[in-house]
């Protein structure tokens, strides 16, 4: 039994068409077209069909958690359906052979390349791997800001099935400096459209009420004896968090290096 005051408040918000932010509101069913399947059956089952269109969703996790794999699969599924997809590649980290081996129809993918910042500034690695050339923070901020602007332009143009912003390697400090209204503005831009907007980040940023958050945890899989070990893939555990649909489930996905440039390299 719901609280009458809450019910009154919700009905007042609905009357003013401000109910998009209510987590208790179940979206009206709009058929299969309302969701953008990721192309991975188990993950789609966990997502109850796919990523919601007209919402800002997130794929978050640490390095080697399978964020890029799931992103490329989602883009591949969208392009295979005949939709256009866009990837705002903030630090220019897309590996084209990986994307094509995932099944992305390259003619339907708009790839917006940000600026690859030299050394470790744009890699999110800090100075861990050795001496880095410390660039000004403003440079990273500017690159991220441009990427967000590019995302905004693509969303405003409309017509894309899936649009992704890759901030996976952005330093947390730079992400923290972004005003939170950035995500509200993006949510507003994508609202009502048929675009599923996806954010790739090291941690949840937008926390959109209407979107879903895929929180990933990955484990590398190795095979072979000590003298002939090889990386065979990743075991990815995806925790699906959806405030609006009140769903929280976990899905395990295995990935393989077969078909990857790595495998091609081994054969050659």
């Amino acid at each position, binding site marked *: 039994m719901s609280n009458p005051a809450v019910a009154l408040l919700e009905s007042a918000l609905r009357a003013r068409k401000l109910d998009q932010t209510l987590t208790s509101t179940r979206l009206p069913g709009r058929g299969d077209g309302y969701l953008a399947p990721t*192309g991975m*059956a*188990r993950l789609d089952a966990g997502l109850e069909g796919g990523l919601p269109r007209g919402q800002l969703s997130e794929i978050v996790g*640490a390095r*080697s*958690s*399978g964020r*890029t*794999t*799931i*992103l*490329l699969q989602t883009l591949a599924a969208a*392009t*295979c*359906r*005949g939709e256009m997809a866009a990837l705002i590649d903030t630090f220019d*980290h897309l*590996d*084209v*052979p*990986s*994307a*094509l081996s*995932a*099944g992305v129809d*390259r003619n*339907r*993918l*708009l*790839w*917006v*390349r940000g600026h690859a910042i*030299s050394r470790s500034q744009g*890699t999110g*690695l800090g100075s*861990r*791997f*050795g001496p*880095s050339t410390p660039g000004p923070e403003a440079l990273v901020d500017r690159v991220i800001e*441009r990427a967000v602007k*590019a995302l905004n*332009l693509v969303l405003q*143009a*409309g017509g894309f*099935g899936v649009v992704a912003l890759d901030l*996976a390697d952005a330093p947390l400090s730079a992400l923290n400096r972004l005003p939170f209204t950035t995500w509200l503005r993006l949510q507003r831009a994508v609202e009502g459209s048929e675009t599923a907007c996806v954010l790739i980040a090291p941690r949840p940023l937008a926390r959109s009420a209407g979107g879903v958050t895929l929180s990933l945890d990955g484990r*590398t899989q*190795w095979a072979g004896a000590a003298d002939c*070990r*090889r*990386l065979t*893939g*990743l075991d990815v555990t995806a925790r699906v968090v959806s405030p609006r649909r009140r769903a929280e489930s976990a899905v395990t*996905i*295995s*990935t393989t*290096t077969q078909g*990857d440039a*790595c495998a091609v*390299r081994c054969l050659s």
Partner: protein
Amino acid sequence: MFGVISVAEGSSLELMQAVAHEFSPRIEVNDPRTITLDLSGLTRLFGEARAMGEALARTAGARGLRVRIAIAGTRTAARVLAHATGGPLTVVDPGDEAAALARLPVELLAVCAGHDAPAVSNRRTPASSHDADVTTFRRWGLHTLGDVAALSADAVAARLGQQGVRWQRLARGEDLRPLLPVVPEERFEQAIDLEWPIEGLEPLSFVLGRLMDPLSVHLERRGRGAAVLHVRLHLVTRVVHERTLQLPTPIRDARALRTLVLLDLESHPPAAAIDCVSVTVDPTPARDLQHSLLTRPLPSPEKLSTLMARLTALMGEGRCGSPALVDSWAPGAYAMTRFSPDTLVPSHRALSTSEVPAVALRRFRHPVHARVRVQQGRPVSVGGAVTQCAGPWRTAGHWWDEETWDRDEWDVTLSDGAAYRVFRDRRTDRWFLDGIVD
């Protein structure tokens, strides 16, 4: 009613066309010496057919042209008569074409065949084939066009097929195809001289709006779209700032054209204030697009062009497009191509529902220098303790130019669980991070 002007050899075709255009807007150039005019509906302007012919002859004579003119109800009859008769003017009343041609020799069929060749025969017929058919008529004892016209159509079709029937229709003076009028080349150009020089793009956008609107209307009326846009800005320094925009698809939307020009000028601004603005369009046939009820609509090319222009202005030249593989073994080799999804071609790829997707790599476009500790030829520390490693895989290539590479690659997992691809550059003996397995 049609008129044909035939001039003596060596006369100027342009001059002849100018004379013809003074009488009719619909003219067809048959060959460098013959022009056909559509004279329908001109009697109220120039009088009856004979008066019209005399006026034509007078005008041509005034320009120094020696012409023979024939006027008839059909183009074929007029052309044959202009070629065959010796007088300066021949007029045949509509309906009398067959009778007027009946006494002319059968060899004149070749005159018609030269102009109506595509209609006379569907196959590529050489001139010798026409001569062969005329010779056949001769061997049958037919000497005039009237003899050919008098034959039974069924009998001609039985012996020469459809081509024979077409010869017979020409012999009767019938037209096999309509007139194909010469379309004068239209210029799609707008220019404006400014009373006061303007600086900056904001005032220029209003000026461009004034120029683009009539251009767009003109293109729409002619069923054309802009393929190339030339913008000329005459500056106060007497320098002409010229920009040329190659449009990916024919566009005639005034707002889209204006936005594209402004976005281009944002990247390439003029050096001084602007005195005069001129916009010229290279036209091309407009797009005919049939939308599908079954597929999701894609954004219009106008929107896409504008989006690409905005993205290019924001991110820089060559940073927006579609990825493409290149024919190279170089690690991470790729190319960018223009983003132009084909709206009519559905994607033929099957939707993958694979349970085991291929793992992806996040590649550092500029490999990151790494401090690596090696024991017994294997990396044991790459910024952190290595828990698993595999390799080396040696690749090398392009030893003949500056893009050479020679490296030993390793896959390593560090203590934090992240997997990296690292490599040792064998030429410099330095280690780099190539990417993250993600």
